[in-house]
């Protein structure tokens, strides 16, 4: 822990630069969970050790270059034996053992507490998040993983298309999402926080904009969130013409071919599509387009009409054929799905 205190001093002292802004931290040096904290400590130890060895080696070389008369007569073979073989050998042996110990320390698979199970499915270029065994039935959301503080969360990762990698640096290292495989990583958050994660394996045109927010909540708050998310959204107040029009537009424009809004599964334009993110509570999310825009009526309208300007290569076409009133109504309707 002391090493991290030193790290914190360096961070605040400006060596490492400013902290992340409102988007949530994404720094491995700013850990918010025990695994990332242990790895951060380990990183600082590695860094310090590497710095000492580097300075020592350079000092030896500089000594030979700058003071050539002083270095004669050192038996070279002994020099090579100790400096090149024995010292690195011992250091690396220690490091191998330390590596294995740290590796075990951040592996929470054997944690005594029953984990919350979550499945994260990668898509080009967004994340589907599924809570498969909640008491009230499975819950599907997107680009946002909310978890209770302190409880282990077993994340099973897989993909629907290419290889992606799940990485929330403030909680843990990476785990790849590989077609045909189910990989698991167990996370624990130690304090309430908003954390940013990002796809770490190059996955195509919009790899840069495939972010995921992890929101660590107090357990009671988490339960409340789950309950709100599991509820089917109320239909819009018939008096609010714009909202009614927005909902109609959502269905008639064919949005339901790719998206789900629970409660709209009936009728000729049912919203049951499986290709895009579930939008049941899209208005409650922190961002849209997997982190490319903050949430809100304006960004939603922009996204619908100009996806390909904002995130070229996303699998959704730009709906700039909707008339102005419909577009604004649709954006407001989606924003109302809290």
């Amino acid at each position: 822990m002391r090493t991290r205190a030193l790290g914190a001093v360096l961070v605040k002292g400006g060596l490492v630069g400013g902290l992340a802004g409102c988007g949530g931290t994404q720094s491995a040096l700013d850990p918010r969970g025990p695994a990332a904290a242990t790895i951060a400590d380990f990183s600082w130890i590695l860094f310090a050790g590497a710095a000492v060895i580097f300075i020592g080696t350079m000092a030896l070389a500089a000594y030979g270059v700058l003071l050539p008369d002083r270095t004669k007569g050192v038996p070279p073979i002994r020099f090579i034996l100790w400096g090149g073989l024995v010292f690195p050998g011992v250091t690396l042996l220690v490091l191998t053992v330390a590596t294995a110990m740290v590796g075990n320390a951040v592996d929470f698979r054997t944690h005594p507490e029953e984990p919350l199970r979550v499945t994260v499915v990668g898509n080009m270029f967004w994340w589907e998040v599924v809570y498969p065994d909640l008491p009230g039935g499975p819950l599907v959301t997107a680009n946002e993983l909310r978890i209770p503080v302190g409880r282990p969360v077993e994340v099973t990762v897989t993909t629907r298309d290419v290889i992606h990698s799940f990485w929330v640096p403030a909680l843990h290292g990476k785990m790849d999402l590989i077609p045909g495989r189910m990989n698991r990583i167990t996370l624990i958050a130690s304090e309430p926080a908003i954390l940013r994660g990002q796809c770490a394996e190059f996955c195509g045109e919009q790899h840069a904009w495939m972010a995921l927010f992890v929101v660590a909540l107090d357990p009671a708050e988490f339960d409340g969130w789950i309950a709100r998310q599991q509820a089917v959204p109320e239909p819009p107040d018939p008096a609010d013409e714009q909202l009614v029009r927005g909902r109609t537009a959502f269905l008639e424009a064919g949005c339901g071919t790719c998206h789900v809004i629970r409660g709209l599964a009936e009728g000729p334009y049912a919203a049951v599509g499986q290709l895009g993110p579930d939008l049941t509570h899209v208005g409650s999310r922190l961002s849209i387009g997997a982190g490319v825009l903050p949430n809100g009526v304006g960004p939603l309208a922009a996204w619908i009409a100009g996806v390909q300007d904002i995130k070229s290569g996303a699998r959704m076409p730009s709906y700039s054929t909707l008339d102005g009133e419909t577009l604004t109504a649709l954006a407001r309707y989606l924003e109302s799905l809290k």
Partner: protein
Amino acid sequence: MGRGPLRIAATAVLGLSGCVALAACGDGNAVQGNREVAGGEAARGKAILTANTHGCGGCHTIPGIPNAHGTVGPPLHGMALRGYVAGRLPNDPGNLVRWISGPQEIDPRSAMPDTGITTAEAAHVAAYLYTLRDIPK
């Protein structure tokens, strides 16, 4: 030592790595009317647009704002020089702030939604937009 093909190779390297000169241009256009926004600070407006909290850059191309490359709405080059806002209001600070903060009240058929931006924020944004004088040729 063979010089012929070596010379050719050297010339090819130089040719391939040669630089392309870029032509620069720009000239001053006269601004018509008042462009002073009461309570608006251009720097804060720029910060609001950069954070993209209200999604402006998703629809509009806005000079000086990273990632504001939208083509849904009109590009905002030379906002200081434009005659009209939204095709109907004379371009003055009051109208611009009104339009930004509540387009649906001015034109309910517009595709530009009420984004929830406050009047104060809209004033900052307007102040920034009035710093834009260049229109690409």
